[in-house]
């Protein structure tokens, strides 16, 4: 593993916010933007070529998810895929969803889609999580009712990195005959994932999460499970998502999925976990009144999330940026509203901690030299901000 070397001027540790698109992905996308190979529904030979490319991308995404290619519905991203899963299953369920189950640490696109069902009369059970953000399979079992329409639990919480016990949860939903939707963002290619074998029914995929282009994603649906389309039109994507496919982006997503799968097989998650552990161990040892949020062991390999007392995240992030380090507070929604994130509230963070939430997410081009740069730059920034804070704010 790369160690030492000159300190990098710029450190990008906000991969969960936006991942750079892999140049190999861009290279494959380029002809689709430049050579007229665009519409898979077109009757000419270029249309035929586009269809073949689209189906090849579909197969690649399916291989990463661990399910059959016929189940892949391409979308504009993970948010649309989450909406299609939740609203699609609910609308298909006769008189509509009567009861749905999700957790308190899901992505806002999952929670808001469930709240929308609540407005139309569905009961929504939002499962609590433990102090590390983990959903208890027993809680899922207890929450199930005869009229439960689906369960939606993300593979991992992208704000605090905790991976969920999906195998146990899927065993329960399978036995009950209730579809399980899994938001795979953050987890695909970074943790063991085999949708069909593990008993998942719907899986959300984000292209950019895999170093593919933004504005693309997919929903994998277990063959045999029927959903209602949410975007109506000319019947693209088997009628489940109309609108001419964004072929350049979807071809890019396919290549990105294939690269992610190959990298996972060659130890990339282990390399990232070593970076993560070095960052966590060193920062916690050098920064007083700072702790890791989420699970220490059962967490995404590229993910570090911290809360610290006596310094506000906004100020720390600004100072880090001035020092060349791009990181985040973990929740864009919380930043917009000025309120604590729903995830930090769910895991029981103290109010003084919630203002100091930091999130460092690494990726394919992250190095140990970059981790060392953060380790060197973060503590003095926090110490300075703490020294400026009024005693009551500490």
């Amino acid at each position: 593993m790369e160690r030492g070397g000159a300190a990098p001027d710029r450190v990008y540790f906000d991969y969960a916010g936006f991942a750079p698109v892999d140049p190999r992905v861009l290279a494959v996308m380029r002809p689709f933007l430049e050579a007229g190979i665009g519409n898979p529904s077109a009757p000419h030979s270029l249309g035929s070529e586009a269809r073949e490319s689209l189906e090849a991308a579909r197969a690649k995404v399916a291989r990463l998810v661990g399910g059959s290619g016929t189940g892949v519905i391409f979308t504009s991203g993970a948010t649309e895929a989450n909406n299609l899963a939740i609203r699609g299953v609910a609308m298909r369920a006769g008189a509509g969803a009567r009861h749905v189950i999700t957790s308190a640490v899901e992505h806002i696109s999952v929670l808001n889609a469930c709240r929308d069902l609540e407005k139309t009369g569905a009961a929504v059970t939002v499962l609590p999580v433990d102090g590390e953000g983990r959903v208890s399979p027993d809680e899922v079992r207890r929450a199930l009712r005869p009229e439960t329409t689906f369960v939606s639990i993300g593979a991992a919480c992208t704000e605090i990195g905790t991976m969920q016990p999906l195998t146990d949860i899927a065993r329960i939903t399978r036995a009950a005959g209730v579809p399980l939707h899994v938001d795979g963002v953050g987890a695909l290619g970074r943790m063991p994932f085999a949708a069909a074998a593990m008993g998942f029914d719907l899986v959300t995929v984000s292209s950019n999460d895999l170093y593919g282009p933004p504005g693309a994603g997919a929903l994998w649906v277990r063959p045999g499970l029927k959903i209602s389309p949410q975007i109506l039109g000319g019947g693209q994507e088997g009628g489940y998502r109309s609108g001419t496919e964004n072929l350049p982006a979807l071809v890019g997503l396919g290549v990105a999925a294939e690269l992610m799968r190959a990298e996972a097989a060659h130890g990339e998650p282990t390399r990232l976990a070593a970076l993560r552990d070095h960052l966590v161990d060193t920062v916690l040892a050098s920064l007083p009144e700072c702790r890791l949020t989420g699970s220490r062991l059962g967490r995404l390999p590229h993910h570090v999330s911290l809360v610290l007392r006596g310094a506000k995240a906004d100020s720390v992030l600004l100072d880090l940026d001035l020092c060349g380090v791009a990181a985040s507070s973990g929740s864009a929604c919380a930043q917009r509203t000025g309120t604590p994130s729903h995830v930090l509230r769910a895991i029981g963070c103290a109010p003084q901690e919630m203002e100091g939430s930091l999130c460092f997410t690494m990726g394919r081009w992250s190095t140990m030299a970059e981790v060392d740069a953060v380790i060197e730059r973060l503590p003095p920034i926090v110490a300075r901000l703490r020294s400026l804070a009024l005693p009551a704010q500490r």
Partner: protein
Amino acid sequence: MTAESKVLIPDKEIDCIGLFCPMPIVKTREAIQEMRTGELLAMLSDDPASDADMRSWCQGTGHELEEVTREGGVFRFLVRKTR
């Protein structure tokens, strides 16, 4: 609705019906920023989470949540700008 609530006349009203978190709070925050201290904002929302979100936001910002009513699925929040 209480007798007292009938005398509360908002200086401004925003309609957030159909929107979900974080937008009702984002729009409330923007509206409050444009108002004068002491003025009253009415915000309408049918997001089931907006009750808890508004209480939390008012508690955090110090603005006074004077009244919450609900008719059908629509909440009406009256928030007084305090600073």
